[in-house]
């Protein structure tokens, strides 16, 4: 059904009105009577022994209600935070799993590690009291430099992880790859750093909790992307509160980008302390705290080599990566540089042999975990920069080299050498469209024109593939995931015909309240204003896995479709009874049950009414009510793909890189709401360009201090850093989910860094610059130019 509000329509968002009128409700907005306020005292040192903590003076401060330290948790037998994905190393042994206490007991391991929780009548009083806590630290040398994390003599972060090694993991057969390299006509080699990023969702993380003494029930409000999973972790592993006694609510959440997937120390403490304090507790991170304690993203050091034959066909790819885990293993940290990274190294290409070795390191820095794209941007960056580098070395057109190696459209489903089976795709028309939109043929003229103005112009490609819609439980389970990866939906009609749809997915900007309503409207014919999408509350929604990995529509939307099928099936039986027809003859069209070839019909609302007021009802075969649940576990990941083309101009005098144009053509399968999809792509591109040109967490290598610890030094992309973007679509429906959809949330961020950096390298190649690391800041670019000039002079 195509309507102004159905599948494929640019429906304006239902959720917008509350956000535009200041009536959205985020965690910090909650009015909780008699609330107390928490403040966390955090370690100023990257690595230190705690010799003592003296809270006596602080306890006497005005307004102080309670002060807790790590010792209180030990006494209360509170468990540590967990990493939920067991990665087996190349010998088949599970990764090293050092303990991750909720609050530090005897050692702090990064600047920001939680040392004490102060609960007071006001935020200021809590903060005042925190200053009176005396912690006697014995400062230890810190392990900060990732590239040297395994070196002899480097400080050890955890006794449980000798040599700072969490795992040494591999995929592919090294000997086969080496043999292919031995026969190669050309080998392209590359050393790159995938810079460390700080997510900086605009809403800082926050938590509030309340304990009901009468029932023993806890309520935790959290800025979570997945409230059910948070509840599961807190109940089963950390706090031991029975799952049914803990309600987790993630109300309006101001962006996540992965950083709000994980179970954090502070929200854990707020929940735990609620029963001890006996009053509600509120905590909201200051931005400075977010910088220190939100899980960071990326942070790889990689050596890669690509072997090609004399025609330019890829023979093999070999990748060695050191991945930073930070000081502790966060919730999904181990999976990111392995199963979400190395399995994507085939990209869009037929590379027959791939070997990847990943060593994960612990360092005295904030934990690192999934951040928009999680592993896939890192893989795409390796593949797409080495392909462009190979093209430059072989003096081939970068688009041509890509085309030559694309997986042929006829080869799907396509089994890659790194475990994944791509279900569908059609890459050549995508790159063609992107080149058309970007006016690739006109580029050399633009380059010449820029040169006349003293500017260096460059163009860069990035043809990405991603595996998302996380996804088949059997597969992820076999790879070590500690949870299933299905999604749930419940469709509950009310007697008056309006409908509430409960989803296990969580919306924190993605517009589920609109997109999901479009599905219901399209399939069941219910008017949009009669549909409410309910999410984010464990008490009102069925157990679900939440939103990350571009999974909400492909998995959560599919669960909703499955539930609508059940609604229709039940409705058909009711309608058949009402129409005195055979169920087999009843069809459902445009919201109405009909008997083919007659004018008999029963609108869905009438069937619903009959289900709740079952005076004339097939009681023998049907229960009353119209309320259906579905769980959907997909057969495979979904594989969106696309090509981005970035065009930059560099001012060689200052090193400033300006993005002149950025084109993205994507295949997201079927599109439900193009407006929302475009918004996702825009945001993703900016985060990707941000990684390439602006953003980078900088820790002082000697002290482990985060010197890019505020917006004064961590460059957030701003409006004037960008042109408007040019987008295009090609559609290859996903063959295995009912909507034919793929995922769109991460694509922009996955593809953009390579497109930008390839453009930067393309621009700088004529003046002899071989390599610029991300972020290509003015300083970085200028220094690279200086280096090239020095090299040329020698």
């Amino acid at each position, binding site marked *: 059904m195509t309507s102004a509000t159905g599948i494929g329509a640019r429906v304006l*968002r239902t959720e917008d009105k509350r956000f535009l009128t200041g009536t959205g409700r985020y965690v910090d907005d909650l009015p909780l009577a008699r609330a107390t306020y928490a403040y966390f005292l955090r370690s100023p040192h990257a690595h230190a022994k705690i010799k003592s903590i003296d809270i006596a003076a602080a306890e006497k401060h005005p307004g102080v209600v309670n002060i807790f330290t790590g010792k209180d948790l030990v006494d209360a037998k509170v468990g540590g935070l967990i990493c939920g994905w067991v990665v087996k190393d190349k010998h088949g042994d599970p990764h090293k799993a050092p303990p991750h206490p909720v609050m530090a007991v005897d050692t702090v391991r990064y600047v920001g590690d939680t040392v004490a929780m102060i609960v007071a009548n006001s935020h200021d009083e809590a903060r005042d009291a925190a200053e009176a806590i005396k912690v006697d630290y014995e400062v230890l040398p810190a392990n900060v430099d990732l590239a040297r994390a395994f070196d002899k003599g480097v400080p050890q972060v955890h006794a449980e992880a000798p040599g700072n090694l969490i795992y040494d993991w591999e995929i592919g057969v090294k000997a086969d790859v080496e043999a292919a390299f031995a026969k190669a006509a050309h080998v392209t080699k590359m050393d790159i750093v995938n810079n460390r990023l700080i997510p900086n969702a605009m809403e*800082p993380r926050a938590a509030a909790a309340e304990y009901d003494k009468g029932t023993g029930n806890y309520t935790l409000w959290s800025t979570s992307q997945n409230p059910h999973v948070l509840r599961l972790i807190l109940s089963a592993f950390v706090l031991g509160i029975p799952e049914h006694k803990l309600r987790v609510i993630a109300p309006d959440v101001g962006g996540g980008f992965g950083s709000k997937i994980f179970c954090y120390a502070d929200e854990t403490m707020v929940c735990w302390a609620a029963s001890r304090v006996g009053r509600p507790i509120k905590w909201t991170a200051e931005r400075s705290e977010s910088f220190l304690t939100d899980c960071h993203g990326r942070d790889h050091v990689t050596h890669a080599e690509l072997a090609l034959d004399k025609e330019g066909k890829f023979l093999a790819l070999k990748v060695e990566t050191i991945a930073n885990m930070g000081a502790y293993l966060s919730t999904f940290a181990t999976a990111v540089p392995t199963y979400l990274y190395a399995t994507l190294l085939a990209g869009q290409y037929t590379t027959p042999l791939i070997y990847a070795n990943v060593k994960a390191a612990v360092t005295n820095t904030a934990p690192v975990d999934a951040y928009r794209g999680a592993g896939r941007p890192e893989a795409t960056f390796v593949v797409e920069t080495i392909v462009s580098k190979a093209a430059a070395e072989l003096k081939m057109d970068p688009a041509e080299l890509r085309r030559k190696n694309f997986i042929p459209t006829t080869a799907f489903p396509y089994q890659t050498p790194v475990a994944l089976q791509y279900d569908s795709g059609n890459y050549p028309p995508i790159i063609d469209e992107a080149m058309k939109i970007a006016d690739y043929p006109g580029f050399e003229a633009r380059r010449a024109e820029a040169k006349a103005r003293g500017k260096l112009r460059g163009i860069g490609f990035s043809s990405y593939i991603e595996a998302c819609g996380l996804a088949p439980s059997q597969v992820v389970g076999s790879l070590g995931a500690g949870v299933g990866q299905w999604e749930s939906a419940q469709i509950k009609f009310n007697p008056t015909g309006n409908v509430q749809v409960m989803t296990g997915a969580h919306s924190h900007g993605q517009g589920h309240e609109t997109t999901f309503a479009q599905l219901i409207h399209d399939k069941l014919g219910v008017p949009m204003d009669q549909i409410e999408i309910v999410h984010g509350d464990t008490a009102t929604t069925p157990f679900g896995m939440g939103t990350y990995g571009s999974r909400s529509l492909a998995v959560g939307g599919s669960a909703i479709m499955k539930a609508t099928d059940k609604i229709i099936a039940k409705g058909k039986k009711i309608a058949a009874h009402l129409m005195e027809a055979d169920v087999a003859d009843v069809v459902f069209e445009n919201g109405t049950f009909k008997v083919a070839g007659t004018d008999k019909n029963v609108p869905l609302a009438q069937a619903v009414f009959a289900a709740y007021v079952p005076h004339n009802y097939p009681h023998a075969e049907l229960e009353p009510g119209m309320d259906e649940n579905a769980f959907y576990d997909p057969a495979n990941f979904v594989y969106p793909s696309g090509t981005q083309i970035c065009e930059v101009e560099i001012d060689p005098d200052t090193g400033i890189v300006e993005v002149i144009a950025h084109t993205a053509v994507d295949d997201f399968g079927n599109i439900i709401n193009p407006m929302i999809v475009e918004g996702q792509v825009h945001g993703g591109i900016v985060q990707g360009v941000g990684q390439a040109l602006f953003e980078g967490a900088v820790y002082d290598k000697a002290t482990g201090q985060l010197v890019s610890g505020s917006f004064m030094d961590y460059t957030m992309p701003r409006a004037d850093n960008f042109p408007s973007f040019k987008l295009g679509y090609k559609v290859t429906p996903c063959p295995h989910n009912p909507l034919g959809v793929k995922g769109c949330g991460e694509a922009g961020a996955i593809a953009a860094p390579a497109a930008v950096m390839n453009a930067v390298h393309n621009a700088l190649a004529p003046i002899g610059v071989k390599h610029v690391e991300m972020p290509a800041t003015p300083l970085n670019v200028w220094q690279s130019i200086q280096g090239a000039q020095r090299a040329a002079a020698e």
Partner: protein
Amino acid sequence: MTISVAMTVNGKAVSGKVEARTLLVQFLRENLGMTGTHVGCDTSQCGACVVHVDGQSIKSCTMLAVQAEGAKVMTIEGLAPSAEKLHPMQEAFRDNHALQCGFCTPGMVMSAIDMVKRHNYELDEATVRRELEGNLCRCTGYHNIVKAILAAAPAMKSAGV
């Protein structure tokens, strides 16, 4: 030091007792329960807290409540002329999908309105982008925010706001 403050917020006279250190944004959120104005950073850069004080956009996280004594303050809650009707800037943000998570949105809208007025309802893309220097958004990539503001400028002019 406790001080009494009185000001007009969204056309209504309000007053309260605050500490000298209370920020305007705290007064709005905590004393008045107007939580539409957000706090997204502690270095006065993100712009989630932008409100209008005497017709000018300011960062309410970088102004003391006592400094707004006697001032006319306008927040996101006071923009829409009625429960049904939105301000043209709010409309334009919705029409152009210029918001996703909604957290930066109140400050973005307040800055945008001020920008349109200061430029006498005439803006081009480069100006809009430059004028958004004090507002960070992590979701939209700014693309649709710029579109929305460009669309709102003539709409505000014809609506006379």
